[in-house]
């Protein structure tokens, strides 16, 4: 019984791993080898030609730069807005707290992803269509981040807060010296979730960007892949795909523990 189940799981594990293995192998295969059949997990004459060609055909460097700016731009602003709001909800008593809390909760149910069309209108009213700013702005407030951080701030002992105040700390000094350091693991968790989410985001940037200067990697990859429909160019599309997923996959293999626990953290709601 036990052996049977482990057998099933090992087979499933291998199946799950195959797509990654295959895209990497294909990206190093010469074009004709892909369509001529043969064993798909073996390259007789590995080549980096696909990478060279992909790199030449599409402005991947610019796309990397755009994605990098977008991902860090989202994260930096989120860290500020989330920290301030979470501190208010965790440690200040004020009128309308419950109502505001419920309003924040709404964003968990109505996420920016599903508001593609009305958000496009907002951005165009602001005159920001086709800018990196437009890709970032809808995510600058994160209800998820606020709840995550509020939970963490609530666990900071009140005594610490009071001691800091007795020493004459202003609220922002207390926040900086007491709350933020003690919430470090949660910040890392939030950052990893945010970065991987925005690195992967596609539909919104597809709609709101229209030029090489503001398009992120995902949109660039999709346009690149669509211009090659025959199997002969799979190698190039595979190379492009690997270039987009590699930073995330490498980071994942290096920081597995942090990734897994950060996604687990993201479950606390």
């Amino acid at each position, binding site marked *: 019984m036990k052996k049977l*189940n*482990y057998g099933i*799981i*090992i087979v*499933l*594990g291998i199946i*799950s*791993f195959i*797509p*990654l293995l*295959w895209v990497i192998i*294909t990206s190093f295969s010469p074009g004709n080898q892909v*369509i001529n059949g043969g064993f798909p997990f073996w390259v007789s004459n590995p080549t980096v030609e696909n990478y060279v060609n992909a790199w030449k055909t599409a402005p991947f460097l610019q796309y990397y730069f755009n994605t990098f700016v977008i991902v860090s731009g989202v994260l930096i602003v989120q860290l500020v*807005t989330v920290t*301030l*709001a979470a*501190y*208010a909800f965790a440690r*200040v008593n*004020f*009128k*309308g707290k419950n109502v505001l809390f419920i*309003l*924040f909760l*709404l964003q*968990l*149910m*109505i*996420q920016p*992803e*599903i*508001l*593609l*069309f*009305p*958000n496009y209108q*907002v951005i165009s009213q602001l005159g920001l269509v086709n800018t990196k700013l437009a890709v970032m*702005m*809808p995510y600058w*407030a994160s209800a998820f981040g606020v709840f995550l951080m509020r939970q963490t701030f609530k666990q900071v002992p009140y005594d610490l807060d009071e001691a800091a105040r007795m020493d004459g700390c202003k609220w922002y000094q207390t926040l900086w010296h007491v709350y933020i350091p003690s919430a470090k693991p949660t910040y890392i968790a939030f950052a990893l979730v945010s970065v991987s989410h925005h*690195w*992967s985001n*596609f*539909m919104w940037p*597809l*709609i709101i960007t229209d030029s090489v200067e503001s398009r992120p990697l*995902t949109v660039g990859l999709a346009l690149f892949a669509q211009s090659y429909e025959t*199997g002969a160019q*799979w190698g190039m599309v*595979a190379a*492009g*795909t690997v270039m*987009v*997923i590699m930073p995330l*996959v490498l980071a*994942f293999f290096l920081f597995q523990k942090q990734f*897994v626990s950060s*996604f*687990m953290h993201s*479950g606390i709601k």
Partner: protein
Amino acid sequence: MTTKQRKLSSGARNNLFAYGLLFPSFIFLSLFTFYPTLKSIQLSFYSGPMTRLQFSGLEQYKGVLEDEIFRKVILNNIIFMIGTVPTSLFLAMYLAIWLNKKMAGSSLLRTSFFYPTIVPLIAVANIWLFIYTPQYGLLDNFLHMFGRDDTNWLGDPNTVMIAMIVMIIWKDAGFFMIFYLAGLQNLPRDVYEAGEMEGAKPFQMFRHITFPLLMPTTLFVMIVAITNSFKNVDHLYIMTKGGPDNASNLLLYHIYEAAFTNWDLGKAAVLTVILIVIMLGITAFNYLYLDRKIHY
């Protein structure tokens, strides 16, 4: 100043302080959640081009609800949800239960199941497009060994949805597995010891102890999975564009088409309102109804 007055003014200062802290978040929530939601509701009652909008009441709702394609898209989305959610939840729980025990290779296996989570859906679509390509695609290559003929997995209305469902299960099962692994680690030891004393068989233990105790995790994961089934549509852009004959089209992608291919703003607004209602409905149902039925 009396003490009462001082209390009031410190209360007022507290209020102002808190509002100040919430202000940055609130601007962006207003701009990109509250205002667009209200705007969609308003626009859904109007029709015509942007510059000459005319009030049309529920006309557009009627139009959308009677639209064959809309019905097909909703049905597709329900099939997609029923196909992905229970299967990936079951698979996730199964994997977690067996991988929770420490054995050689278990962390390697966890990695293999979890990595698809961090691969962007658009890249997943590229990879699986290769897998599903007729003749020289990986799947057909494999099936040739058993003497099966070529199948146009994405080009046939009968197979396209299954193909999508399998792909999404591959992407999401490992993600949900992580939550079950965390849930399993928090289960109380003593209940199992009591079960062992009673001589419960492994499957009875699962049915009467593990499964019910994991219900809160299941509830949480289910919400995430159901909302994902309405949110994740990137793959359609690469793989099928919703076709053939709308056989793989999903609600959010249909909105994208209505708004940005056909520029039918009123229809897009109606569809957006419907999607918002579905999202609110899912969460409300889960928290108000299911949550009460589960014993923590």
